[in-house]
């Protein structure tokens, strides 16, 4: 009997002590296109520091910025452009000095392999094309920028299906519900076999796709978040980014 009570006591202390060690949790807001690479890198970091855990929130960077503006917990904000980080900075929600360049990407057009589409001018002959909603998805903004430069906006009107993030864009193309979609080269790399890259959008038509990483107000005050932020600039992180197809310089 005594031993049972003792066992219960040990068990209780064990459970209580396990609860009382608060592992530091880092909240990440991640651009949809970075989902896999940031997941892998944050897991690597958590393996090195078991006391750290991550909460990962992925989506369109514009939507993520809106969430942060409305009080969503976030320590580090990953965006496929600098605009939304600047936006947060203007609202005094991000740490002014912390915006840094993480990686680069390219815009491509994916569709069924049989499709005779070799450049932007062929895209206007298609019926439905998916892009990210330019209001919140950088991939869609870059695409609109290219359409504007190529003077195709008018001819693409009523053909553009606005996806909520770049991955939904890719999914529309994979399912065949649209003829093709504008996504990043790294998204195309993980696409299913029924779609492939039909052409790469010429770089002269849009600003270079620049991923930024920013500490928010809460992240700047959290040591673990700052550590992870530095880790993301390490040689190891660069290697993993390259593995996923991102350019790092």
């Amino acid at each position, binding site marked *: 009997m005594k031993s049972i009570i003792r066992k219960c006591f040990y068990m209780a202390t064990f459970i209580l002590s396990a609860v009382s060690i608060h592992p530091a949790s880092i909240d990440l807001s991640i651009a949809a296109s970075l989902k896999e690479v940031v997941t892998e890198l944050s897991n690597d970091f958590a393996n090195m520091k078991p006391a750290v855990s991550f909460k990962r929130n992925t989506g369109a960077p514009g939507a993520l*910025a*809106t969430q942060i503006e409305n009080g969503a917990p976030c320590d580090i904000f990953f965006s496929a452009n600098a605009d939304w980080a600047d936006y947060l900075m203007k609202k005094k929600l991000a740490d002014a000095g912390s915006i840094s360049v993480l990686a680069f990407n390219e815009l491509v057009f994916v569709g069924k392999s049989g499709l005779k589409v070799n450049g932007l001018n062929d895209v206007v002959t298609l019926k*439905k094309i998916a892009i990210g*909603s330019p*209001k919140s998805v950088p991939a869609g903004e870059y695409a609109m920028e290219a359409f504007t430069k190529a003077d195709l906006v008018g001819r693409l009107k009523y053909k553009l*299906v*606005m996806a909520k993030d770049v991955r939904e864009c890719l999914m529309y193309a994979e399912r*065949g519900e649209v003829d093709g979609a504008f996504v990043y080269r790294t998204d195309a790399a993980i696409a299913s076999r029924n779609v492939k890259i039909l052409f790469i959008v010429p770089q002269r038509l849009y600003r270079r796709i620049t991923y930024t990483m920013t500490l928010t107000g809460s992240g700047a005050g959290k040591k673990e978040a700052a550590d992870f932020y530095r880790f993301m600039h390490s040689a190891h992180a660069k290697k993993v980014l390259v593995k996923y197809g991102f350019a790092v310089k």
Partner: protein
Amino acid sequence: MIPMSGFGPSDYSAMALSVKVALTATLLSLPFGFAVAYLMTFNKFRGKIVLDGIVNLPLTLPPVVIGYLLLLLLGRNGWIGRTLLQPLGIEVIFTWKAAVIATAVVGFPLMVRSIRIGMETIDRGLIQASRTLGAGRLDTVTTVILPLSLRGIIAGSVLMFARGLGEFGATIIVAGNIPGVTQTIPLAIYEYASSPGGDVMAMALCGISITLSGIVLIFHEWIGRRMDRAG
């Protein structure tokens, strides 16, 4: 990038489209809604519970589920999509037709319920009288049941129209979000609400949405009172 105030052309087309989709879905559902309500009220048959369940299921199912099932059914690789729609050259997914179908499925049980309630209040003696006086089944339906359940039909239509104005979950999956083609008010609000600085426009469209719903409700009340007086 986003205007501080004032609606752009895509906002106006979202308003028009919302009304167009909800109205078309309601009018298309009307004959079916009447037929199903008639079957359920005046007939006993095998599988009645099953039919009742199928008709009412969209009421409790998440609209996203309905949208997804419709996509699997009507999509390019879908069951009906591949065997029927594609050979006929009909495109449904990501067109306003898809929005109509989604809205019709989601709102259908509301219409059937209202019509049934209307039909159940009809004095059975009147129906029997018309039959014994020599009216055929169809005759009884058009001259007795239809006029006496008119109130339920109108209430059901108004309810379904109102529900259609707000359809989002099923619509965004099957009709996508194409400004000027399939972007209804709820979809436009969703887009504004997830873009930084879109608050003003989101609120403005919320205002339109509230106004539209208010008008529909007032119309519903008004027609109810008018019919009370007439009856």
